[in-house]
């Protein structure tokens, strides 16, 4: 019983860390335009819309976070093997991984933006200096959270995978969940704030991203501030639920019926999310209504 209570406590802690990681990851990627909306940031100057948006997308979020989290976890694991205190080891490992992220962000921005020189897009050094440090700060929060939850899963809950491998797996899952949930909000709702609310961006409007703020030109810090409220929170809840529920069903129900308990609870949870998803879909159809008459649409 004591073991189960301990497991539930660790599970709750990892769920909270995952929520923070998801939120920080999405905000970091939005400030750096690393998700799929980077295509519009790259396209805009080619359509004549020169901008001051940061763009460091030379890899998708999942492989990038897989690398950074595996790096942070691997270094933390090495420091712990050298008898360094676990908390200190995780912090140092995450800091070193963030230095790699900073180098990546710098070279990615310079490379991507320099390739647009023929379209008149300048490389802004002030953007490079102010945005890179902010993405590094957010990346540190995300990497630190993932390495810590991986350490808890490995050390306290007894998962067989070594720390670097857990960092890789949860880093990729973090990037996948964060990009899936957060990208549409940045891509549609922020970059195309000039388009109608409640409709997708017409393909003919591609590249015409919003470039001006209340005062002066919009930059990526404005984008991070805006998207964090819904896109970042939703990404955090998404990744938090994934980690928490995966651990919860294992810790509480794996011993029931030789492992079948965790399977049945997992299937039940999938069914619950299916019902919730269907409710959301039907709610939208009823409340937002069709864009055109059914008989006219083709």
């Amino acid at each position, binding site marked *: 019983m004591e073991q189960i209570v301990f497991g539930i406590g660790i599970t709750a802690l990892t769920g909270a860390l995952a929520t923070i990681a998801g939120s920080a990851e999405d905000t970091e990627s939005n400030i750096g335009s690393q998700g*799929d*909306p980077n295509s519009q940031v790259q396209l805009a100057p080619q359509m004549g819309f020169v901008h001051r948006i940061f763009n460091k997308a030379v890899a998708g979020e999942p492989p990038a976070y897989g690398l950074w989290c595996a790096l942070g976890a691997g270094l933390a694991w090495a420091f712990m093997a050298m008898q360094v205190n676990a908390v200190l080891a995780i912090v140092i490992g995450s800091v070193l991984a963030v230095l790699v992220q900073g180098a990546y962000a710098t070279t990615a921005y310079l490379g991507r933006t320099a390739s647009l020189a023929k379209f008149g897009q300048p490389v802004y050094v002030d953007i490079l200096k102010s945005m890179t440090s902010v993405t590094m700060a957010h990346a540190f929060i995300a990497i630190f959270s993932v390495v810590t939850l991986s350490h808890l899963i490995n050390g306290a809950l007894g998962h067989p995978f070594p720390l670097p491998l857990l960092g890789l797996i949860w880093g990729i899952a973090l990037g996948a969940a964060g990009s*899936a949930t957060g990208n549409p909000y940045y891509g549609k709702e922020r970059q195309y704030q000039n388009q109608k609310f409640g409709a997708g961006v017409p393909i003919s409007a591609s590249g015409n991203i919003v470039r001006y703020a209340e005062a002066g030109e919009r930059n990526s810090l404005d984008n991070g501030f805006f998207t964090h409220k819904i896109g970042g929170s939703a990404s955090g809840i998404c990744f938090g639920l994934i980690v928490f529920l995966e651990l919860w069903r294992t810790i509480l129900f794996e011993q029931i019926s030789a492992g079948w308990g965790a399977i049945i609870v997992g299937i039940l949870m999938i069914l619950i*999310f299916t019902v919730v998803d269907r409710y959301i879909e039907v709610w939208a159809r009823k409340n937002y209504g069709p864009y055109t008459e059914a008989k006219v649409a083709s």
Partner: protein
Amino acid sequence: MNPTAMVVGVVMLLIILALCWYVSPGMGLMALIGIVVGGVLIGFGTHFVPVGGAPAAMGQAPGIATGVAMLAAGAGLAGLFGGAWAAEQGLVVATITGGVGGGLMMAITCMMVNFVYVFGMGIPSASGKVAKDPITGDTQAEFKSQGTEGHGLPFVSFVGGVTGGFLGGAGGTLIYLQLLSLYEATLPAVMGVPPAQVMPIAVAAAGIFAVGLFLVNAVLTAYNITGTIEGPHDPKFKRWPRSIVASAVASALCGFFAILIVAI
């Protein structure tokens, strides 16, 4: 479909299996067959995952706004995490546990995607590929906003995502379990150390190979569907046979090298 390419693929698969039988006729061959089955499950499962890529991020096309290989990898690796934890419960339970883990990850992600579309952006789901949702019968065209190919995740895409996550998680776990049992049995003799000492190395090596094989198969499928797919109702889904052959050959080749490290 190119019959010649399919035949060449099957012949290559048989050659690799024959080589494995020559090098390691017992456990090695059985492990390789398990790896091929796991790889095929991953490749087939990735076809179900609804991914819209960059256009989905602007609400211009349905699906999840990220890369297909990356999303499938995220779900499958979450499944592998659960399956590896349940390895002691036996092959069947661990494989299904891995599948449920992948399915659960996709169920949460797909639900949150629709949540953001509906409550964050005010956009209902609409498919661009079918007039009616094959499962619910909901008409789609009138909910498609002007100038787009659709947006969000219709119910059939949600079900496809969960199915893909399940197959990917189960396939990844199967590969892991096959390699783990092989390494546990052979590494002590190869390295000349007691079985207890070899366990962390066996777990780590099997886990890394499982992750690598997962990415190989997911990327192969991403090429097959040219980057985006709405789910099982998408016409691109019919391309799966050639991807199955490609996944089988690629998994066999990668698996063969994973077996060679203990067989030679």
